Structure formats: structure tokens, C-alpha cells
């Protein structure tokens, strides 16, 4: 039998329509990367070192997360990288074998092997040439897996430590590939997210090194410095890596989450300084429009929305606000009219939020930036796990990162033994 052109087209259409079918979402992850489904065994936490706390160094902390394991809610291992580099974000390569993480202060990249022994990641490579490789880019922020490559968005540059910055690509072997600078009049950078189905990439904008490394109170009291925050998002032709549209989104738009369901051609972001949820939606003519669709808490009190997480069914948007340590869950079934359906104080300060693929567990960490975290008794540093039943968050466990001598916990990613052992669990 020969496969005819028509048969092949039907096969291809069937594959494309069914290939990635799945039940849920593992938030914040590149769609090019296989997801961990079911119960996660570990939460990897990229953690800032604190002087006088443990060894004082930035480290990757592995916490047990499977309630059936004896290490549930306990620190399983730590990998210290030596020194403090303003550990911030990180993510896996497209095959999920390596976790790339960055330091915002000195722009060093760390590559951890998580596949060989998921309970005990090992530092496999350090890249200290990021600024030189990239032609002067500073402050590696988001790590986004592409096939065979890692796309790194950044915050600053080495010429003036301001907000002009770029997207930098490395291959999975740690070799520099290219730098794509942000366009004029939209020069700030922060997050980067790709929607392959539309061949569109969105970037957001924060502030340069001279601001993000400053003491937060001093920064807020400096009106001139406060002018130097991003007010734009850029829509890119992803394949061509060309900026095609600049959107006005005033007030430092940070995390970007594309909707996940078919025909949902939109994304959400929140603005740190103006405290709003923005909808970035494709129009009938293919262009995108940015619209503020909800206030977050009382914007006049600058609650400082930070991380967000969108559920797999595009129904719930989790929004963390740093200043009041609160997570608000919005029903965004109608993306133009988000409604708060749950509100819960998690701690004295709050930054990152990560949902599991099945949406049943939600993890939170506390640290924003070393010099922006609260002082004194409000400087709580924790990883907290909750169960989400669609209506409320119920505590599961928490780890005190100061009492454990670890530091300031920031981004979280999940690990699972069976994923890396390539095992079939019969009856699963």
C-alpha cells in the first residue's frame, strides 16, 4: 500500500489536532518541553543566599513533595554554587534533563543536571561569559526552552546598567547562539513567552540593574529612578525573531501567561506598579491589543502584584501580591471580566506561585529580590504547599528557609522519579 498525499494530509491533521492532548497544566513551562504529569516527587527551589544563614550562598534546594515518601515536606538535598549572585529565575531544557538558572547581579548562568538523580541535582556547567557572549546584555531573567536551545530574556546592559536589554539564545550545550535586542522605544525586558500555534512571542518590561539591585525603600523615594521602569510589551514574529508591534502597558508588566486552550488567542500579564490585570488579545486582523481588565486589590496602596499562574482550563488566574502576602484567585472564564473567587493571605510577603499539571496543588515562595524583601519579622522566607479544590487553598506543608539555613526561596520547578527513570507504571 502506498500512502497518498491526501492520506498523509489527513494523518498530519489528525496528529496535529491530537498530539499534545492532555488534561492539565504545569504552569510557566515552555510548550516545547514534556510535562510532569501526576504527583510530583520534588520541588526544586532556586534560592538566594543570605549572609549568616547556612553557608550564605545561592543554591538549588530540592524539597520532597510526594506525600507517600518519607521525605515529604523535607529538604532532600542542596547544591550550593558558592557566593551570592541574586539567584532569581530558572527553567529546564527542552528535554527536561538540565535546569538552567541565572544570577541577576553578576549574570552568571548555572546548569544543573536533574536527570541523572532527580533527588540530588548536580551542577554540570557554569557559564560566566553571558555578558561577553551576548555583546553586553546583563541580568538573565526568564529561561525558556526551545528545541535544542534555551532562550534567555534579560533586564539590563553593561553600558549604563539601565533598562535597554535583549533576548539571548544559547544551545543546550551552553554555546552562545545569538542576541536579539529589544526594539527602540520598547527597550526594557523581563519575561518572554511563545505561543507556537500563532508564531507569536510576547515580551514584557521591568527595570535595569541600577534599580533592581537598589534598596527598595530608597528606590521608591527616588522619583527620578522610578521613571525608569518599562511601560511596554512587544509582540514578535517568533520564527523570524522580529518585533512587529509595541503595546502600551504602563506600570511594569511582568509575568506573561498565554492561554492554553484551542482558539484562546490571548495572554495575561499584571503590572507591578499600577496593579492591574491586562489582557493581551489577538484581534480579527491578527494584531494584538492590550486592555486593562481588572484592578488587583487597591492599586493606590501599591500591593505590587508579582507572579501569576493560569490553570489548564484557562479558568483560574492565581495572582500573588508581594506587599500584603496574599494570593487572589480570579475566575477568568470571561477573560475581559476577571472576578475574584478566592483570596488568601499566605505570609508576610509573597512572590512566586506554581501550579501542578493537574491543578490540584499550588506552591508558593516568598522572596522577590534580596534588596526588596521586607525587613525584620516580616522577612519570612518559606516554601508553602497548598491543595486547591477549585474553591479554596488548604495548607499541605511548609518549609522555613531561614530556620533550615537555606536563604531566600525564589522560582520553583517540579521533578519526578518515574519521568527520569523512563518507567511505565502498569495500571497507571
Amino acid at each position, binding site marked *: 500500500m502506498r500512502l497518498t498525499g491526501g492520506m498523509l494530509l489527513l494523518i498530519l491533521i489528525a496528529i496535529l489536532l491530537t498530539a499534545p492532548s492532555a488534561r492539565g497544566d504545569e504552569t510557566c513551562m515552555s510548550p516545547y518541553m514534556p510535562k510532569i504529569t501526576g504527583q510530583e516527587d520534588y520541588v526544586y527551589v532556586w534560592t538566594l543566599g543570605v549572609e549568616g544563614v547556612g553557608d550564605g550562598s545561592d543554591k538549588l534546594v530540592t524539597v520532597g513533595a510526594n506525600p507517600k515518601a518519607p521525605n515529604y515536606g523535607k529538604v532532600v538535598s542542596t547544591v550550593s554554587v558558592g557566593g551570592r549572585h541574586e539567584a532569581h529565575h530558572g527553567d529546564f531544557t*527542552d528535554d527536561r534533563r538540565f535546569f538552567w538558572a541565572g544570577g541577576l547581579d553578576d549574570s552568571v548562568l548555572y546548569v544543573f543536571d536533574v536527570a541523572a538523580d532527580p533527588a540530588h541535582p548536580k551542577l554540570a556547567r557554569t557559564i560566566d561569559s553571558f555578558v561577553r557572549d551576548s555583546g553586553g546584555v546583563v541580568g538573565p531573567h526568564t529561561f525558556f526552552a526551545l*528545541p*535544542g536551545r534555551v532562550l534567555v530574556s534579560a533586564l539590563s546592559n553593561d553600558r549604563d546598567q539601565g533598562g535597554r536589554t535583549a533576548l539571548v539564545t544559547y544551545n543546550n550545550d551552553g554555546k552562545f547562539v545569538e542576541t536579539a535586542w529589544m526594539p527602540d522605544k520598547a527597550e526594557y525586558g523581563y519575561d518572554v513567552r511563545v505561543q507556537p500555534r500563532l*508564531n507569536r512571542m510576547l515580551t514584557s518590561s521591568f527595570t535595569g540593574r541600577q534599580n533592581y539591585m537598589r534598596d527598595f525603600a530608597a528606590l521608591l523615594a527616588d522619583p527620578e529612578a522610578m521613571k525608569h521602569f518599562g511601560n511596554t510589551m512587544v509582540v514578535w514574529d517568533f520564527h523570524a525573531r522580529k518585533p512587529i508591534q509595541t503595546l502600551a502597558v504602563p506600570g511594569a508588566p511582568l509575568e506573561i501567561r498565554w492561554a492554553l*486552550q484551542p482558539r484562546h488567542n490571548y495572554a495575561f500579564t499584571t503590572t507591578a506598579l499600577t496593579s492591574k490585570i491586562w489582557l493581551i488579545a489577538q484581534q480579527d486582523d491578527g494584531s494584538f491589543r492590550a486592555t486593562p481588565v481588572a484592578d488587583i486589590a487597591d492599586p493606590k496602596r501599591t500591593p505590587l502584584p508579582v507572579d501569576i499562574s493560569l490553570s489548564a482550563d484557562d479558568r483560574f488566574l492565581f495572582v500573588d501580591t508581594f506587599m500584603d502576602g496574599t494570593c487572589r484567585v480570579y475566575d477568568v472564564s470571561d477573560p475581559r471580566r476577571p472576578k475574584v473567587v478566592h483570596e488568601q493571605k499566605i505570609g508576610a510577603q509573597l512572590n512566586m506561585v506554581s501550579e501542578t499539571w493537574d491543578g490540584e496543588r499550588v506552591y508558593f515562595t516568598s522572596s522577590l529580590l534580596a534588596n526588596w524583601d521586607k525587613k525584620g519579622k516580616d522577612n519570612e522566607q518559606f516554601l508553602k504547599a497548598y491543595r486547591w479544590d477549585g474553591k479554596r487553598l488548604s495548607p499541605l506543608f511548609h518549609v522555613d528557609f531561614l530556620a533550615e539555613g537555606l536563604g531566600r526561596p525564589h522560582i520553583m520547578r517540579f521533578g519526578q522519579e518515574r519521568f527520569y527513570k523512563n518507567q511505565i507504571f502498569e495500571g497507571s
Partner: protein
Amino acid sequence: MIRAALAALVALAGPAVAAEVAAPERLRGVDPAALGYTYAVGTFAPEYAPPAPGSYTLPVIQTVHDHPLVDADGRPTTLFTLKRGRVAVVAFIYTTCIDVAGCPLGNAVLARIDGALAAEPILARRARLITVSFDPERDTPARMARVRALYRPSASWRFLTTRGDNELRPLLEDFGQPVAKLRFADGRWSGLFRHVLKVFLLDRENRVRNIYSVGFLGPALVLNDIRTLAGEPASTAPPGAAGLASPTMAASARRHAAARGPSPRHR
């Protein structure tokens, strides 16, 4: 669809002569969703027109080396012998794959590209499609010939395998294509592999200029990339600097990157 593919796998795997005997019959009781990778919700079906050929650049991602292969007629050859200075699309598959986001997708896309190239003889002469099995135990030249007969490709598409792990491992490592046998809890091989489908676009100088996985593997896009590379004058690839062989060359490339500042792409 997956259950039908499972049945086909069981039927196909029966007569295979393999160093390690697989037990695909045990897969009948397994949830198919547990067998393949899960990438995203919804669909990756492209809803865009790819950018026009030559309107963008493809930086060098890495450089690959020559590797021994065996063609579907059992004749020894090598990757570069097959390429002979052409642009090439290289896909790693195994013929009994049931992961719809894996090898079947790769084969279907290459078949579409092959059909398109057949209609463009000038471009077809400058491009080569190369499908290489990473299951040499079962994907013998004879089996690759059967797959070839199924697709009846034009002159551009070749089906290859290797003589075993000694040839296969360096090839997969060079391209950065991890592959692992999917096993039952007792260690018995299921007959399946775990792998992220990657399809590599090589320029005339054997540099990887794009890598496609399930999220971005569309025939129209790959064809435009082939046209983009085929239209490049020799040795005019954007520096990229990745995969350069010697430390001296790599250092030179970094200097170049540092000197040029903002990428030419956005000036």
C-alpha cells in the same frame, strides 16, 4: 488512534530479531497516556503563515560531524556522503513508535515536504531529507526498505539505520537527541522509546540552523527554511558562534559578538 497504533506495534514487534527482546504485549493493559510525553494543552496546529523565505536569518545553533550509516538497501554510507553539500532535514525515528507527537508526526511532515520538493525540481536538487532510525536492533535495512515502500518518496528522501549502538550513540550525542528505552517496573523493555521528537535543519556546511520539535514542525515552515538556506550565498550564515570546533574559533566568535552589539536582525 493510540490504541490502534498499540495493536500495530504488537503485531510489528513479533518477528523482530532483537538483542533485547521486548514485551509489547504487556502494553495492552497500560493507559496510553502514560506511554508518550505530554507537552501542552490543546493543539499545536499552525494558525499562521510562515515568514517569507529569505526575509529572516537562521543563526548557527551547532555543527555536526560525519557519521557512518547504512541505507535501506544495506549499503554502508555516511551522513555527509548523503548530503553532498546540500541543505538537509534530518529526523531521528523508530519505525514502531506509537507516540503521535513523535515519529509518526516526523514521518508525516517529511512526507509532505518530500511531496512539495518533488514539485520543485530545482529546490529538490539542493535539499535532502534523511530519516535515521535510533532502533538498529529492530530497524534493519530491510525494515527501513519496507517503510520506504510505504511512503514511496521522491528522489530527495532517504531512509537509514546504523550497524548498532557503537555507531548510533555518537550520532545521537552529536545532534543532542536523547533517547531511552521505556521499561516496565521490573526492568523489562516495553519495545517503546522515550524521546523528544527533534528534526534538524542542516545547511550546506553541516551546521544546524534550526531544530523543530512538535511545537513548530510544520511542512510550510520547514520548506521556507530550506528555501532560505538554499538561497544563501556560501558561508554567509549569521555568526551564531555555536558549535565551533576549536577554542580559538570560539573565542573569535565571542569577540565578534561583543563587537557587533545589537543584533543585525533588529537594526
